């Protein structure tokens, strides 16, 4: 299997670890730091894939991941948290323990589902896709189990990281750069203040439970 698999496995495994660390955090600034870490690992992983597949256009994706997702977005979120005076403690719906157990269960589940069905692909692609799915599921769990709008955005960014890992892991996928740019634009819109700023205009906190008061008609 060799060193190429080992390095890819290490980077993807560390990304999963970063996702679990995000579940563990209950303060906003460290959460953003872990998000930056995960994006940096993604950049490294994509760079390694670019090297393995001899696909120079993937270096562009790696650069986007590094500059945009690992540097700019966490910085922008940090500034927003600071300027909007958002609560820096994140309340979670269930305690951290059960959340982390659920996260581990999701990792196990995604490995169990994805590994058998990708039997035809080569090992690096297989483990990239399986671990990418676990990162996506952990991001979903993060979105669902937190009461703070910023942490929900962070969960979505984790989902974005997972999907980028999958897209580059599936070797030779065309339009990867275009799709990752499109996704990054989506991410940028979520982050760069269009709604956070509007939310700030209206509410004093970005606690989603406060948003619920304005839910309108209850179904």
């Amino acid at each position: 299997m060799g060193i190429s698999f080992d390095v890819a496995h290490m980077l993807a495994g560390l990304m999963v670890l970063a996702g679990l660390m995000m579940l563990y955090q209950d303060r906003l600034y460290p959460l953003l730091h872990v998000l930056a870490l995960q994006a940096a690992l993604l950049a490294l992983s994509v760079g390694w894939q670019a090297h393995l597949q001899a696909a120079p256009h993937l270096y562009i994706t790696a650069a986007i991941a590094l500059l945009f997702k690992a540097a700019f977005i966490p910085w922008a979120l940090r500034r927003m948290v600071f300027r909007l005076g958002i609560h820096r403690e994140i309340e979670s719906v269930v305690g951290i323990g059960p959340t982390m157990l659920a996260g581990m269960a999701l990792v196990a589940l995604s490995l169990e589902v994805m590994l058998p069905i990708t039997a035809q692909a080569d090992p690096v692609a297989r483990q990239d896709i399986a671990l990418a799915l676990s990162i996506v599921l952990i991001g979903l769990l993060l979105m669902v189990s937190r009461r703070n709008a910023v942490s929900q955005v962070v969960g979505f960014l984790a989902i974005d990281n997972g999907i980028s890992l999958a897209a580059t892991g599936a070797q030779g996928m065309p339009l990867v750069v275009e799709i990752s740019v499109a996704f990054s634009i989506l991410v940028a819109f979520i982050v760069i203040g269009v709604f956070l700023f509007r939310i700030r205009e209206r509410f004093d906190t970005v606690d989603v439970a406060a948003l619920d008061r304005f839910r309108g008609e209850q179904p």
Partner: protein
Amino acid sequence: MIGLVGVLAAPLVGAAILAFLSAYRLSARINVVVSAAAFASALLLLVERPAPGRFLLVDDLNVVFIVLGTFVGLTTSVFSASYIGHELATGRLTLPYLRFYHAMFQLMAFGMNLALAANNIGLMWVAVELATLTTVMMVGIYRTHQAIEAAWKYFILGSVGIALALFGTILVYLAARPVVGPGIDGMVWTVLMVHAHGFDPALMNVAFVFLLLGYGTKVGLAPMHAWLPDAHAEGPTPISAVLSGLLLNVALYALLRFKMLMAATPGAIAPGPLMIVLGLVSLVFAGFMLYRRRDIKRMFAYSSIEHMGIIVFAFGMAGPLGNFAGLLQMAMHSLTKSAIFFSVGHVAQVKGTQRIAEMGGLTETHPLLGWALVAGVVAIAGLPPFGVFTSEFLVVSSSFARQPVLAVLLVLGLLVSFGALLLRLSAIAFGEPLGSVEPVRASYVPIFAHLALVLIAGVWLPGPLVLWFQHVAALLG
């Protein structure tokens, strides 16, 4: 070629122009003109189609939807002209946002047309994402508390759906790679259809689950529907019309493309049962929800969920009859629901409220609007002679033939929603006049044009159209 270029270029150019125009009358007129140009190009596509390329494709399935989509876009732009005028007058919408609104409108039309015409599953995804982005911005345009909450919820749920759909797309590529080879061809739909018999069934199954969950969120299937009622209720009414009439269809169209791919892969679990379950759940759930709605737009939003449930159920039943019924229902629902939203928009404007309890006796105070609403609701409830009755009848009979138990559930759901709609209709349209009795400057042409089309379709479907639908139904497997 011209047709395809026109369908795509007209909205794009229009968006660029409208982003800079502040004068309301002028921009509203240009909006209508651009939409008309798109519609004309779509009509050209009926006559002459370009050959499928690596990125764009026009075939039997999407040509109908492109024509329908541009038509509804045109009528919505006409409606929007008078509606937005009223909003500007009451100060609910300000001039800077007007440019934004018009530009986003055309950008969304571009995104939808691109999604419909895409031959590349990656490009289709990007286009759906673009359409999502633009509609989200428009839903939040009033900037009230409720509007922002609705837009945020729509954004988050829509983005999660899009992300899952992208994952499914990646899995489809992964399944195709051993057969088609790496490179751009692995994502071209026509190439995928040709080679589908060699795909790994298990991988395609998992891929379809993700696609169903992802694009299904944008279709508004329960349990991923949570964004839909709020987005319809809080956004401007033209956006509600476009959401219900067009965007749901585009998302469903994406699902259909993948369903065709699944049908061509032997050994893959038929996606039918999953779609049937989701469709039935949406239908019954929305039917019961209709009873407790107090906001008129929210009620019709649940009606959209219900109809999408019926459509997905029909496609889940599959077979020539089921698929035909689904396609017909998609078209009929699109026309009817947008007509309803047109009239509801004017009703809400004249009454100054969206609460049903504060409206009444519409047929007395505003007869033309009131009777249009009555006709629309009668149509959407599935009464003959409107087209929705035809398609629902076909769905029920196809399911009776295959799975009688499901047909019972289906009819139950239909009856429940039927009751709720007519109950509310009688409260709004008949009885004591409530609320303001100001005369309203409404654009009746879009409303009646749609209703007329639905009526005609209910009575007589033109031959070529039937043949088209049958051909596509056969392709859908």
